[in-house]
């Protein structure tokens, strides 16, 4: 039997071994060692009770519980504890093995069970009873480490999340009115470096009242309301500065004003928004209509720009909220046809339609657009150009062309016939001269009429050119034709490397006109015309070709030359005919340019045209047609040329 004093001493000494250590396991091991040493026990264990009522060892002596029959028996008895009346009623519990070794189970409140085993001797009842307070202390120490471990797990989990967030995150506290960073993740350091203070300090100053005392939180909208702060701000970064969507979330602590600050980098987003705004302004101010509609016979307007408002003479964009797309069509059936075409083809280009403005005025529009998918539905994105004026000019040109071709030609024919009769009957020389003058003027008028028709044909073919032209062959052909018609003139085609230009029959028309002018308007006894070609000297040599026509004539009158070079004709500055205009329009429609220079003895006109490669031209010509454009035939080019 132990003396009271020895027991008190022993309990005191055991208590010295009980207390939180670095880990739960160390806490349990140290305490268990104290119990075993001071109570002279052979084996022991501290077992944690799981939620399902089973037990797991936290610390045992020996380390492998199954190595000791005594401890194994004691541990097995844990599962046999009758908890019907509560664990407090069941413990402490004693037991003995077949070899008369004794074990003791003690409750560790809210934690588990302490197991002690003695090979010899027993723990007396008084000592067992006296251990209760120590066991409570042990349970408290173990529980505190357990909670600490769980908190550490939570902390580690939080830390993992903290570091996994790709955006800068900082944990801050407000001390002495200053918010400082206590932790931050790697993206934060990469973005802001290691600033002394929270980025966006100005913003935080606004959020935190100047009179805020230590520990005061930022003002919030009110109790029970969202206490988050979310706003956009500009902060200095390692790269300069950036725009951020700033979230500040208060952390629930008792004493400190603590926050989690999240900085979402919206610099790119803001730049895109600004770019979008620029585009919106651009689209809004375009002189054409840009709009979005739904498909269908009627169709709804979704978006319209100011250009469409202006073109359709609407008061405002609100007009389109109350009208369907078909309302602006003169013939609503055309709207349905247009919608069907766009849905079928996916895109349309330069479709001419007759519309009606909000004021009821008819107009012509040229519409291009695409069908696209937006939010799981098909929409039309369209561009509309007012071509009413062009259509009216086309009408005027058609009438004028008819007048030139038909009415004027008929009148010329009548005048020619009558002039021929007069020529036969009039014998007086002075009158004969008058008749000859009439015949010459009528002839000129006839040529002018024919040339006007030719000019008209230039434009009929538009700007689309899918043919290549062998420059040498073309120049030789033109020279041959003129040598036959004008044997008095001298034609020379210089030698130059084979080359091809993107052109069609209009190039030959232009050359023919130029060579004809060089001969017809030449005042020399032997008109001389030299044609040659080579890589452009004015443009990029590999991509452009210069075709030069040089004569020994008197030169082009300055006012005509100026008119052609400026591309504009005024009542005070105009040419005498259509010849040079024919050349100008033909070359312009072919995408080229014309330059007029004074030569040593005459004029040199340079036509600059886009070059195509020999391979492209060969491919276009096909195996059976090595000849390129000769006269009025071009070789078709493939699309990628």
């Amino acid at each position, binding site marked *: 039997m132990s003396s009271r004093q020895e027991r008190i001493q022993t309990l005191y000494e055991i208590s010295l071994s009980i207390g939180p250590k670095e880990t739960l396991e160390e806490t349990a091991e140290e305490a268990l060692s104290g119990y075993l040493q001071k109570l*002279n*026990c052979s084996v022991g264990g501290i077992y944690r009770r799981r939620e399902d009522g089973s037990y797991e060892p936290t610390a045992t002596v020996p380390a492998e519980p199954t190595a000791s029959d005594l401890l194994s028996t004691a541990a097995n008895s844990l599962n046999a504890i009758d908890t019907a009346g509560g664990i407090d009623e069941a413990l402490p519990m004693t037991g003995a093995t077949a070899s008369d070794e004794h074990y003791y189970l003690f409750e560790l409140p809210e934690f588990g069970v302490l197991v002690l085993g003695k090979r010899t001797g027993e723990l007396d009842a008084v000592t067992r009873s006296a251990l209760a307070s120590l066991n409570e202390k042990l349970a408290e120490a173990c529980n505190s480490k357990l909670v600490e471990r769980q908190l550490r797990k939570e902390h580690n989990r939080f830390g993992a999340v903290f570091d996994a967030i790709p955006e800068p995150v900082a944990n801050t506290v407000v001390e002495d009115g200053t918010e400082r960073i206590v932790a931050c993740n790697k993206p934060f350091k990469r973005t802001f470096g290691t600033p002394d203070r929270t980025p966006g300090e100005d913003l935080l100053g606004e959020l935190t009242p100047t009179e805020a005392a230590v520990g005061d939180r930022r003002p919030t909208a009110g109790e029970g309301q969202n206490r988050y702060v979310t706003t956009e701000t500009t902060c200095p970064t390692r790269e300069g500065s950036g725009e951020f969507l700033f979230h500040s979330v208060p952390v629930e602590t008792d004493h400190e004003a603590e926050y989690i600050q999240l900085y979402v980098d919206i610099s790119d987003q803001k730049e895109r928004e600004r770019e979008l705004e620029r585009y919106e302004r651009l689209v809004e101010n375009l002189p054409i209509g840009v709009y979005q509609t739904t498909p269908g016979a009627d169709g709804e307007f979704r978006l319209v720009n100011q250009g469409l408002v202006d073109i359709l003479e609407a008061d405002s964009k609100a007009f389109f909220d109350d009208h369907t797309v078909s309302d602006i069509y003169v013939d609503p059936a055309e709207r349905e046809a247009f919608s069907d075409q766009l849905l079928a083809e996916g895109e349309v280009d330069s479709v001419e339609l007759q519309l009606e403005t909000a004021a009821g005025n008819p107009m012509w529009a040229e519409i291009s657009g695409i069908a696209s998918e937006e939010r799981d539905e098909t929409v039309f994105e369209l561009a509309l150009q007012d071509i009413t004026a062009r259509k009216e000019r086309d009408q005027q040109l058609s009438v004028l062309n008819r007048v030139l071709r038909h009415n004027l030609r008929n009148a010329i024919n009548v005048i020619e016939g009558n002039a021929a009769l007069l020529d036969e009957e009039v014998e007086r020389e002075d009158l004969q001269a008058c008749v000859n003058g009439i015949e010459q003027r009528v002839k000129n008028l006839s040529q002018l009429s024919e040339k006007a028709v030719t000019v008209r044909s230039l434009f009929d073919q538009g700007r689309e050119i899918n043919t290549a032209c062998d420059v040498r062959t073309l120049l030789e052909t033109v020279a041959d034709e003129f040598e036959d018609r004008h044997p008095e003139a001298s034609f020379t085609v210089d030698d130059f490397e084979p080359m091809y230009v993107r052109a069609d029959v209009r190039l030959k028309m232009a050359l023919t006109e130029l060579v004809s002018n060089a001969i017809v308007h030449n005042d020399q006894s032997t008109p001389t015309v030299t044609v040659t070609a080579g890589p452009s000297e004015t443009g990029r040599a590999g991509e452009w070709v210069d075709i030069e026509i040089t004569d020994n004539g008197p030169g082009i009158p300055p006012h005509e030359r100026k008119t052609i070079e400026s591309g504009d004709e005024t009542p005070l500055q105009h040419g005498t005919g259509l010849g040079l205009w024919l050349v100008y329009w033909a070359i312009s429609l072919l995408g080229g340019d014309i330059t007029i220079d004074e030569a040593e003895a005459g004029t040199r006109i340079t036509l600059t045209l886009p070059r195509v490669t020999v391979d492209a031209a060969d491919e276009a010509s096909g195996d059976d047609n090595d000849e390129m454009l000769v006269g009025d035939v071009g070789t078709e080019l493939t699309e990628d040329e």
Partner: protein
Amino acid sequence: MEATYSTATGTDLRETLAAVADSDGVNGLLLLATPSVDVASDEFAATLAGLSVPAFGGVFPAVIHEGTAKESGLLAVGLPATPDVTVLPNASDPDADFADTLDPELPANGYETAFVFVDAYAEAVPTVIESLFRTYGVGMNFIGGGAGQLDDDRGPSVFTNDGVFADAAVIAAVEQPIEIGVQHGWETLDGPFRVTGSEGPTVTELDGSPAFSVYQEVIESQTETSVTRENFFEVAQSHPFGITRLDAEQIVRDPFAVEGDALTCFGSVPEGEFVNILTGDDESLIAAAAAAYESAVGDDTDGSLYAFDCISRSLYLDDDFDRELAAVDTGDRPVVGALTIGEIANDGSGHLDYYNKTAVIGAVRNE
């Protein structure tokens, strides 16, 4: 038990040990050396490395052979089964994870007993002992003690075939069951005193007063002995400290030095513990040794014995130490052992501890 005592050195010693190692039935060697053996020499290391069986041991102030304590020479004990030898280095490192080096499966693999020799001057001896107990509990019996020389606290003190080590412990598990008897015979003179100041093995305060003053006052008031710093070593041999355990003999802590008011012991004296100041006489100590013998031997009639007795008991008993040896060496069976600087043992029923001034007897069973 095949035990050979030799005072040979150099080549002779090598040949002697080789002969024991090569003997029939010898599968391991327990080597108990005295300070006369130059264990720090390369030659000794080479001798160990050249042995044909696993060997382990330590240097002790004296070895016990044929009923006498010999302060020179070396005792080689042939073991019938191959020992499993483990070295724990850095025995002064309190943060060392000694348990990580220990093989917890030894008891399950049939090892019944472990010889433990640890550098007596290592600062983490309690940690080494605690690691052994936490790992094995009472799964094995332990017997051994602190190695080293009384006048050299830095030299190498334990060894195996792999070399000679300072600041280390050697654990050699054997399959032989050895029953342990542990007794010291010291009785409480006064106490308990709460250790209110200590650092490792050094006690600075008892009950809030300078340790030396308390010690001095107790001894001088209860005995006729005058205590001074100069005679402290002699007085302390008669009056060690005792750390109490419930229902068990106190654990003796042997103070051996005084510096100012601080008393330094072999083995730690944790702050907060209660200690008694003990006293003893020749008869009680010799009786304790006899009791340890009886406890170990029990009913066994022919098993040989291992005796690890504290060097301070020898110093205290002086000429009467022969009587203590006679109490454990009754002549009916071989007795080998050493005078150690602190003893390590458990009796198979309780906590493994590091003792001072204690007689530890191990009786081999099933030999």
